[in-house]
């Protein structure tokens, strides 16, 4: 790709130029725009897609409290020693009841606040079931275009988010800790399948090596050719961190041709969007919602097969134009711009 060189912050006149020049305020505002997802987000996404390409995206996930944020802090420190600029997107769940959230991951990364080579953004999942926020892949594009060498996405693993993160990250690091959550749970959640690198953190505690050995033996039982590294580290004591950086770099090299990452991000954005849109159209008592209830009753009476009813529901969903509110059966345009 032959994109024109990014201008300097001083020479930049528009918000987008400032973003390309790596101005943190412009990047921060772009992330808000993408997260808020109005008409401006649509315009911004298109401009970003034309310029993305060089950042390495590492997903860090695992159960609550295993030390992900502390590990990210140490990892960022190691990358800075290698003169790489790093952005961290730390995702925490929103309360399903109130929509609110306390975003505390970055409190573990306080040492980097005064370092202009590090940018940290706290993100709430905003009701997205997978545990990640819907807009994260688009936000990665913005950080990429702002010129960061590496991007780390931290998200709590809740079974689904590991899988989601692995769909768009260049390298997925799954973090565990000794004695936290039994191993059977890990297998059930499918965590091992998505990991490019497995980390047993809190290696300073007893049983860490035993946990790592257990994971290795489970991995040997699987019938895949790509066996992830299992590393024992201690985030608090800064042990094994350089090995982790090397393991991530090696896993990234295995991950295919240039441009693949941004394409995966766009695909994941589309997938999540499509799923959310179907969900939205089925919710409430609009046309699709009514069809869902009617067809559900017909399935219950044995009048139609589940497969046929599913097709009928999806057809109903497809017939709704996006400018039409889900709860509006009428034909008149709604006036709201929802492109």
């Amino acid at each position: 790709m032959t994109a024109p060189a990014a201008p300097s912050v001083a020479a930049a006149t528009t918000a987008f130029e400032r973003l390309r020049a790596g101005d943190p305020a412009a990047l921060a505002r772009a992330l808000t725009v993408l997260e808020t997802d109005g008409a401006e987000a649509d315009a911004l996404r298109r401009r970003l897609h034309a310029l993305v390409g060089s950042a390495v995206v590492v997903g860090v996930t695992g159960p609550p409290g295993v030390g992900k944020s502390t590990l990210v802090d140490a990892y960022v420190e190691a990358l800075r020693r290698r003169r790489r600029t790093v952005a961290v997107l730390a995702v925490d769940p929103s309360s399903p009841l109130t929509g609110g959230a306390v975003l505390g991951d970055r409190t573990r990364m306080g040492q980097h606040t005064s370092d202009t080579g590090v940018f940290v953004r706290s993100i709430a999942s905003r009701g997205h079931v997978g545990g990640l926020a819907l807009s994260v892949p688009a936000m990665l594009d913005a950080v990429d275009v702002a010129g960061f060498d590496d991007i780390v996405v931290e998200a709590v693993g809740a079974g689904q988010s590991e899988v989601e993160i692995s769909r768009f990250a260049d390298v997925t690091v799954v973090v565990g800790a000794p004695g936290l959550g039994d191993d059977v749970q890990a297998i059930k959640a499918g965590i091992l399948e998505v990991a490019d690198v497995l980390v047993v953190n809190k290696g300073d505690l007893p049983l860490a090596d035993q946990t790592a050995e257990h994971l290795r033996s489970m991995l040997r039982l699987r019938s895949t050719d790509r066996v992830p590294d299992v590393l024992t580290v201690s985030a608090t004591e800064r042990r094994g961190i350089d090995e982790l950086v090397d393991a991530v770099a090696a896993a990234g090299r295995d991950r295919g041709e240039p441009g693949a990452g941004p394409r995966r991000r766009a695909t994941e954005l589309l997938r999540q969007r499509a799923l959310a849109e179907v969900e939205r159209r089925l919710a409430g008592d609009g046309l699709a919602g009514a069809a869902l209830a009617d067809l559900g009753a017909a399935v219950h009476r044995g009048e139609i097969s589940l497969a046929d009813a599913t097709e009928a529901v999806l057809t109903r969903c497809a017939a709704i134009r996006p400018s039409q509110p889900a709860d509006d059966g009428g034909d008149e345009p709604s006036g709201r711009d929802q492109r």
Partner: protein
Amino acid sequence: MNETSSPPAPTALDAAPLRVLVTKIGLDGHDRGSRLVAAFLRDAGHEVIYTPPWQQVADVVTLAVQEDVDVIGVSSLATDHLIVPDLMDALRAAGLGHVAVVVGGIVPEQELPPLLEAGVRAVFGPGSSRDEIVGAVATWGVEARTAKLADGGFAR
């Protein structure tokens, strides 16, 4: 509570949660108050970025920039509020003049005017109710966000 002017009513544009930085600058380390406020702002549906006490003014500005917050809540139980005018200057210098800054805690009567003159939107004393604080944060926060998103700069 003390106000300097009355903000416009919230609009439908602003259904998304507000982003609020809850922090403590200065030397006092008593953070029970700020933890409590963080929790009830979360329960009111906002996204709270919480920091430990002892933040430097420059670090608060960096956090506010990166997190693109709409509101900053500063807890002050001793003399921390005396640093708030410096924070206001630093925020304006960083282009964050739209961010609504509120102070909560113990501020002697005679030390209120300098805070309000520096642009602090509200000061909540020990008698303030939860509803008062939540309501003010919502009102000022929506105003701040409307201001920051008004230019639609990335579409141009």
